[in-house]
């Protein structure tokens, strides 16, 4: 069930876009000793198809917790996350795994590649569960070519630089052709040059694939690449900044 919303102003909102993710009044409480602390205090926003959204905030603001919830890795205390109109917060483990496999690709600050597998095998990993057409190795090679790593297919993660590892991680995130790519501080472990390269790659992939990118970061340079920046402070959205400079 897609909701059509009016087009936003800005470079990537030239046409009408459907809402592909609806985050509704998310709260998250966690026990801390005998007390419970409120990490997220009612977060609501929508993500549209093909959008590049950054979630920014200081350390401890709850952005990683929010990212975990919208990626289907964690459950909120209350609230809903609708992907294509389906609430993923109340799904069974098996169904949620299928959603993570087919709808969401994830990229992490620490790359999280499997150290015993080669670059190609790492990209193939998501293709061995769920239903996917074609040969996993051909798909992996195609994606590694897309991120410029054709010459590194048989290299293990410890034989790759940080930037190359993150490229492999991005290729893995795209392996199952998901609707969303969700990244947690994707440039956090990279130097400025490699960080910029990865951001360029994301921008290029966004153009080529039309995927929706959601990135949590505290880096204003990363956030500046986004169509929209959702700022979170102390578990609440304080402002939403559009790339044209307007605020909500």
């Amino acid at each position, binding site marked *: 069930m897609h909701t059509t919303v009016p087009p936003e102003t800005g470079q990537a909102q030239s046409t009408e876009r459907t809402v592909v993710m609806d985050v509704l009044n998310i709260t998250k409480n966690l026990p801390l000793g005998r007390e419970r602390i409120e990490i997220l205090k009612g977060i609501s926003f929508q993500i549209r198809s093909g959008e590049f959204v950054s979630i920014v905030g200081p350390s401890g603001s709850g952005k990683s917790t929010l990212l975990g919830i919208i990626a*289907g890795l964690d459950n909120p205390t209350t609230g809903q996350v609708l992907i294509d109109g389906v609430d993923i917060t109340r799904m069974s483990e098996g169904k949620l*795994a*299928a959603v993570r496999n087919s709808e969401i690709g994830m990229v992490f600050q*620490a790359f999280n590649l499997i150290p015993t*597998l080669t670059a190609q095998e790492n990209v193939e990993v998501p293709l061995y569960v769920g239903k996917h057409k074609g040969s996993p190795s051909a798909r992996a090679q195609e994606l590694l070519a897309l991120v410029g790593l054709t010459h590194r297919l048989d290299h293990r993660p410890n034989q790759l630089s940080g930037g190359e590892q993150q490229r492999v991680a991005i290729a893995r995130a795209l392996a199952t052709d998901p609707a969303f790519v969700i990244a947690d501080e994707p440039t956090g472990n990279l130097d400025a040059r490699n960080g910029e390269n990865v951001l360029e790659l994301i921008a290029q992939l966004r153009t080529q694939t039309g995927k929706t990118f959601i990135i949590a970061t505290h880096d204003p340079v990363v956030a500046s690449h986004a169509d929209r920046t959702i700022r979170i402070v102390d578990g609440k959205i304080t402002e939403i900044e559009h790339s044209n400079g307007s605020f909500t």
Partner: protein
Amino acid sequence: MKASMYFNYTSRSLLRGGLRTLLAVFCVAVGVMAIVALQLVGSMLQNSLTSSTRDTNGGDIAVTAQSVPFKASDLSYFEQLKSEGAITNYTAVMSANGSLSPVASPGTSGPLSPVASSSQSFSVNAVDPNNYPVVSPPTFVTPSYGSVSNLLTRNQVIITQQLSTTFHHKVGDIVTVYIKTQAGSGQTLHVTIAGVVADSGVFAQSGNLMLISAHDEQAAAPSTPASYSTVYVTTANQAQTDAVVKAINQHFPLASTQTVAGALQAQQSSIDLISKFLEIAGLLALLIGGVGIVNTMQVLLSRRKTEIAMLKTTGYRRVDLYVLFGLEAGLLGMVGGIIGAAAATGVSSIVRILMQNLGLTVPFQLNPWTIAGGVAIGLVTALIFGLIPIVQAANIRPLNVIRDLSESRGASSIALTIALLVVLSVLFCALAIVILKNDVVLGIAAVYGAFAFLLVLSVFFGLVVFVVSKLPVPEHFDLRYLALILVGMAASVLLYLVLPVFGILLFAASLVGIVIVLVPRTWKVSTKMALRNIGRQRTRTTTTMLALFITASLADRR
């Protein structure tokens, strides 16, 4: 394609495990080695004892008259049975004790005093060379084509291979033998060793035995009437055997009869007992190896928490991870099983040699099914004991990929662990019952008895870990700390009276308690951190201690 990736992932993960993987393989290998070696030895024993029971028995019926030996006139009864067709053949044997003179010299026979110590004694059977044995002829070691009738002539004797080895005599040696029957007086014979027979068939359980001709024995003591200790009888069939046994028992009420079936039954019950004992010993070794697998796999998989969370993030379900880690445990078990089965072959060969040195002839037989079964047991054991770490690993939450979450210690986690332990015990019980050849009661008793022992041991080690993790590391001596040291020392003295080694260890620990206050501050901090770290993963530390204790106990026993 998928299988290839799964295999690559699991095999490389095991290689990456390094020493931990080796330890797990060792645990499986030790368990499998124990079970296969003990099964092989049991099987060899069984074959040794039952394969030629008729030959070992000397005939279909062995009639023994120890208290009142048969006289020559008694043999007419057997002759009558033979002429009536009730039996097919018989032979009478005179048994005596023999000893060798240290100096071998040719000469004539005559009465002499004993010339050798009892430690050099052996059995001597005087037989009719033309009618002995009534079962399969013996296998000659030297000369290879010898026969009893050809060699037992003119003061020539035949000896068993064991006697040849024990007394270092060979064919052609002339020896002086002092022979004493139970009833008659002793006599000395100068004889030539004409043949050496293998310790098999009719001589399988004979040990140190010398065969001489009854004629030569009689010629040495013509005034002593012949007395036969045993008559070996052959019959045409089992019905005949049963009828003849009845008739002989009626005719010679003081004699005892042993049929092949009776010998087999007597041997079988002792073989069953030995086999069961060996199998239970192997099973316990396997169980102990299993504890090692649980511990090793827990450590191996907990190191890969983020990796497992990553797999879940990409869409892997619990069931996918069960397959992946099950394959890992299976590979581990198979490698351990192969190594264990290979080692068992060597160990069983050594055991066989040791048994032969003890005088028991055991043919070396490698049952391929037992060896293949060993590999299968290794595989199944690894899967059974891998169950707990695999399920725990598959339960890792995908959120671990973003932040390190502590392991759940809630009621559901405890309930899951208890349920898994119950499943594990039931599965291992089923395996034990299969290994113990469907002996359900023994299987349950062995497995749950061992589990109870391990539980008691775990509680003890858990308590030790708890106490150790709470030990204080003070900056200065204070009254409470000194009181603690004094209590420790007093306890060590009391413990010394019951368990000296543990008493000394506790005393040493108490002394360390004094020393630690005097060491530099950085050392104190390190010690404190080490003690607190022990307490952080109490369950795992307890399992490690249990595995180390048992491994050390096994090594000590070997």
